[in-house]
Every structure is written in C-alpha cells, then in structure tokens.
C-alpha cells in the first residue's frame, strides 16, 4: 500500500465558526462604541482604550511565554477584555491606574484560572472590581462629554504620573473652564439616586451625557449586540433576560412612586438605558465562558443579573450595580448549569424516579 493509512472519524465537516472568529467579531461590534467614546471624550478616551488593550494583550502574552506555552493572544479574547476595561472606566481615569486594572483583569481574572475557557468571572469586571476597591475616588469622578478642546488636550487626570493620586484641583479648574451649565460631575445614575433628578431617557439612549467611557450610547451598544446575535455569536437570550427583568422589576417600583414630589424610583426606561446596564447586558453578561450553557439556565442567569442590578441600584449603597450583579451571576453559573440540565429526548419515568 503506497498511501499512508489515515482513519479519521466523522464528522468530516465543521461549522463556520471558530473561537478566534467569534472573538474577532465581538471586537468589531465593540468598535463603534469605542469610537463614539473617543468622539465624546477625545484624546483621553483614546489613550485609555489604547493603554488598556495593550496592557491586556501584553499581559497575556507575557504569562504565556513565562509558562512556556504558545501565546494565546491570537484568539482576540484579550483584546475584548482590554476594550471592555477601558469602556467601563471613567474617561478621565489616570492611565497608570487603567494599566493596573487591565493587568489585574488578565492576570487575576483569566491567567490564574487557567486562561481562556477556564475563567469563572468575566475578566474585565474583575479588573474593574479591583479598580473600584483600589482607586475609589478617581473611579467615581466623571467628566462631561463633548468638551470643545477634547481633541487637543487630555483631561488633566489622565496623565497622572504612576503611583500618584490625580490632581483634582487641576481637574476642577479644567471642568470650570468648560463652562458647562449645571454640570455637577455626577452621572445620571448618581443624580437619580442621590438627588432624585431623572434625566431625559432619549439623551441617555443616544449617549450624550456623563458616563464611563463607553457606557453612554445604549443605541450603539444595542446595534453591536444585534450584529453579533444575527451572526449567532452572541446568545440573545441573555441581554433580553437581563434588560427585560430589569425593566419589569424597576417598572413595578416605578408604579410605587408617590404622586407628588420628586420620584424616588426611576422609570424603567431610565433603568435600562442608564449606566452600564446596556453594556453589561450585551457585552459582559454574554461572555460565553462565564455564562451558563443550558437553555433554561441562560434565562435564569439573565433574570438574576437584571434583578440584582435593580436591587443594588435602588437599595444598595452604590448607584451602579451592574458590575456586582454580573460577577454574582458568574459565580452562580456552575450551580445554574448543574440545576438546569435539559430533559433529554426519551427520558423515561423510571429514570426520573431514580434520580428523585
């Protein structure tokens, strides 16, 4: 026999998707959101995104090389993490702090668990949770968008030298120099929570208000999500469950508002378009690795995240709850998977009784 015997086994065909292709398209879907953030916040946002992505990719590459394995950066997942980290930080966040957050997200959030596919939590949120604890003040300092000199100068805090606290006096002077009416430095969510002022939902939807670098335009986030869902690279059930449950739950509370005076509870439209909920629901809760795989489990997971977000926002000490809600959802994923094993075809009564 002249030819080498080669016995491959079926199936001999493969579907169209591969991991790197899916990840690459998630990056594409995040691009409009990132560009919008640059348009809105200028140089600072650009520097933030570039730093975060470079540090994420670099960290992953470094750890792979150190452990002597082939570098896994070509699967694009580190780029996603980098983009997400940048998009959930305030646009004027000091770059060195962003770099630390990005490093932590990959090192602690991903590599420690064993790399792509083994991480329990969404790495970007691990980085953000770390930043929230370590850099409490800068992470709650918000910048107004559309400053007229945004493409010419950085937001002063951006260029804080490493290991130093940002200079908030300079920041204040800079903010005042912008002469923006009624700017309080608070995000719409904080205004709602602490001052009970509800901003226009349409503005939120289009994204023209103070926020994290990439959380502002619900519209662009949705479009990115729709693109991925159509290409079957994103489980549409998760954002639907997250946003749907948040909408309904906050709607119930909204109806409890007193008839006179300032509203205590925000409208459901405000809930789903404000803060990081949209970005979280579409791009972070849907992270495949840390979300359930079973059809029923996916719904439970989404509803859990949506309701937790509303609960934290309304009753917690924080004005933003998406991050913790998703991290909790991630933590519950193995349990959810376990409890929602699908009923198999032809499952017999007898078997069920045995299991019970």
């Amino acid at each position, binding site marked *: 026999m002249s030819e080498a*015997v080669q016995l491959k086994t079926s*199936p001999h065909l493969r579907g169209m998707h591969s991991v790197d292709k899916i990840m690459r398209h998630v990056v594409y879907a995040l691009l409009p959101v990132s560009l919008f953030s640059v348009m809105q916040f200028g140089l600072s946002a650009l520097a933030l995104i570039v730093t975060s992505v470079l540090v994420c990719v670099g960290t992953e590459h470094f750890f792979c090389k150190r452990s002597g394995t082939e570098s896994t950066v070509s699967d694009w997942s580190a780029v996603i993490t980098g983009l997400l980290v940048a998009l959930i930080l305030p646009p004027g966040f000091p770059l060195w702090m962003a770099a630390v957050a990005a490093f932590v997200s990959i090192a602690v959030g991903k590599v420690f668990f064993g790399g792509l596919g083994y991480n329990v939590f969404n790495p970007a949120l691990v980085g953000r949770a770390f930043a929230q604890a370590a850099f409490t003040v800068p992470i709650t300092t918000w910048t107004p968008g559309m400053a007229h000199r945004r493409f010419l100068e950085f937001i002063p805090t951006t260029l804080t030298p490493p290991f130093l606290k940002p200079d908030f006096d300079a920041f204040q002077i800079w903010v005042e120099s912008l002469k923006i009416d009624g700017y309080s430095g608070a995000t719409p969510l904080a205004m709602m929570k602490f001052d009970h002022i509800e901003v226009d939902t349409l503005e939120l939807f289009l994204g023209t208000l103070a926020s994290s670098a990439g959380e502002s335009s619900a519209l662009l986030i949705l479009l990115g999500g729709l693109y991925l869902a159509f290409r079957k690279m994103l489980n549409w059930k998760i954002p639907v469950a997250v946003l749907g449950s948040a909408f309904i739950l906050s709607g119930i509370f909204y109806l409890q508002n007193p008839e006179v005076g300032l509203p205590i509870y925000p409208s459901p439209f405000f809930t789903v378009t404000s803060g990081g909920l949209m970005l979280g629901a579409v791009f972070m809760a849907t992270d495949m690795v840390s979300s359930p*795989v079973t059809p029923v489990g996916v719904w439970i997971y989404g509803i859990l995240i949506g309701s937790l977000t509303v609960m934290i926002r309304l009753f917690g000490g924080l004005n933003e709850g998406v991050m913790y809600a998703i991290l909790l959802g991630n933590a519950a994923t193995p349990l959810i998977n376990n409890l929602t094993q699908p009923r198999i075809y*032809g499952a*017999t009564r007898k078997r069920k009784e045995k299991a019970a």
Partner: protein
Amino acid sequence: MSHKLLDIQHFLRGTFNQGIHPPENKHFTAGKPIERLAFPPQLILPLSQHAGKPSVALVRKGQEVARGEPIARADGFVSVPLHAPASGVVKDICLMPSARGPMVESIVLDVYAGDPQEVLYGTDVDVDAIPASDLMQAVQDTGLVGLGGAAFPTHVKLSVPEGCVIDTVLINGCECEPFLTTDHRLMIEQAADLVAGTRILMKAVGAQRAIIGTEDNKLDAVEAIQAVLKPDDVVSVKAVQTKYPQGAEKMLAKALVNREIPSGNFPSAVGLGVFNVATATQIGQLLPKKQGVIERVVTVTGPGIGRPGNYIVPIGTPIRFILDALGFEGSARHLIMGGPMMGGTVSSLDTPITKGCGGLLILNEHQLTTEEQMKRYPCINCGACVDACPMMLNPCEMGRMAHKAQYETMAERYHLNDCFECGSCSYVCPAAIPLVQYFRVAKSVNRTKAAAS
C-alpha cells in the same frame, strides 16, 4: 436557503428539537437519474457485511456461479445470506482488507467478461399469498441489511418483541446527510417498488398504516410517491423540516408521529417500525421474485470527483474501480464512505462496496486542509453544542469530563449512552473540540470495563 425563510409551510412541518443545518450540497447529484456502471473484472464479497454472525460460504474455490445465486448462507437468526452479484468464477475465499482496516474473510469472484449478466435466479411468487409469519424468513433470504455502519439485518427488525404492538411503519426517506441523494432518486424513480415494499413491511409487523417521511428539500419525491398511492391509502407520505439529523430513527419518530422512543429502547416500544427507503424499495423489488440483494444504488459525489452521480453498482465492487470510471485523481484520504456527518474513512481504495454503503463522498484537497488546520481551543462554554444536540444532552459538560477521563460519571449522570454519535456537537463547536470522538472513546472504555467486571 433564503427562500426557506419565507416558506411558512416549512415551519409548519414536523420536526424534532434542536439539530443543525449544515450546507446541503445535494446539487451535485440530486438531479441525476440512477445510472448503471459497467461490471468490474473482480468482486470482493466479505462474509460479514452486517451486524451478527458472518455468513457461511456455500461455494468452493474454482466454482462457477450465476448472477443471483446464493453463495453463502445465514448462520443463525442474526445473520444473512449472500448472493452472487455477477456471473463468474470463485477465485478464492481468503482474508481481504476491509474498509475499516482489519482483514475479513471474503469471497473473491472473477467476473466473466462479456457475459450478458442476466439474473437467472429467482421465481415469481405472489407476495400477497405469503402468510405474515413467513415474511420474516422471506426477508432474511434476500440478505437485506440496514444502512450505515451497524448494518443490522432487516429481518431482525421485523420480529416484534414480546408485549409490543406495532401500529405504524415509518419509512425513512429523510437522507439528512449532506451530499447524499440515493434515497431521493429511489423515491422519484422507483416509487412503485417503494410503496409495494412498504406494504410488505406493514404486513410483516402487523401495522395498520405506514408513513413515508422525507425532508422538505425533496418535495419532488413526495409528488412521485403520491402519484402511486391509492385514494385513502393506508400508506401516506409526509414532508418534514430539512434539518440534520432528521433521518435518525428517534428524530423521525418525533417529527412524523410525535412519539419519543424511550431511552435505551427500540422504536417498537412505542409501536413503531422504522425502515429505510432503500430497504423498503429492495423488498418491493426482490420479494416478489424471491431474489437476493446483489446490487445497490450509491451516490458518488463531492467536489473531488469528475462525474458525480447516482450509480447502481454490484455489491463487492472495489471502490477504486468506481472512482477510476468517474474521473478521480486523489488518494484514499479524500474519500468518505457514507455521508460527511457520520460516514467513515476507508483504509484503502481496494476495499469493496458493501450492502450498507449508500454513498461515496470525495472531498478535495482544499477542504481537507482547511479542516485539518482548524485550530483547537479550550472549551469556551459557548453552549452551541448544547443547543445543537438532538438528544438534548450536554456535550459541553461531557467533553470536560472526558478530558478528566470521568467516563462513568458521563454515562451515569449525563446520559452518555443516549448519544448516537450524530456529530452535531462537533460540527458546531467553535473550539474544534472532537466531542464525538471523546464520546466514542468513553463508550468503548465503559463497555470494556463492563465486560471485564
């Protein structure tokens, strides 16, 4: 595909849950009428082309045989006889390589060149006069076996287990494997034989009705069959959604009569008998003449072959002979016996077509290399496999367990043994994890363990 989205009827048709939509690729051969190929100079006839005991040779080396003559007999109930596919002389009875690799005892037959190759064997019988109880024997005498790797003798399926009543016969004409069009052509061209065979099968198992099921990408076949049915016929034909693996027994039962075959059971447990279109057609042709299976229709297709088509070939024809006749320049590595989803590769081109083989798929170099270069990643928990599995198993979890060699847990808690290796999970997995391969290994390890204890 796009017109399907607008086809509301498509969505009203029966189907099973989940499954996948691989590119159909039937266009190579769907429109090509069945053709006969020339006889090869030599046939190789393995004595074991079926599940069960090998047949026992009835001929000696050097003996002359006539086309259609029995040359081996069944050895017991789960076994079938073998008939000479061509007139010629027995050259040898010896070990020959088989498609899957191991050497098997085979009858090698030198075909008489220039012989008219008429079937002289067989006597006309009135099938209606055969009592139902004798039909099983009559089917065994034809030597028919089911399609696919297992090649289970057809008559064994006719024996209804104690306590079961079969009310409906399902004839499986789904042919959900991409590329293959054998059953499609049979339904169009030999609809009368198909329906006749269906009636015989109904009688044999005592069913009151029969449904011929096919996918809705073969509506011309539905028309062809309808044309030979009587008004108010007990035999009917029904289109179901085109989806892989619609042609699996369990999926078809769900789609056509909405019955679920319980885990670990045969279709008879829910009153069904399921047979393939090719089997029913052959019964319709062979039984009235008391003949045996000597040839079958094989789809030879794929981007790697010059003249794709549907060909009638004698059982035992070496694959190389068919491919040479049809313009093939590759090697055995391009060849798949059966469909791309469940078919197997062959060890050598010199192995023969057996009774259970309905297709030869020839891939080209480009397809093979893109396939081989598919990069493996760790499981990213995307859930695509869970959404694809027609049995509603959890291939993702099982894949992780297989990694840790927890084969027993897979069987006990995750229903490993309900996996029928359709390959849907491996097909969709973006991480290119060889899930089915894992499951095959797991099953065989479990089997070995069970046998040892």
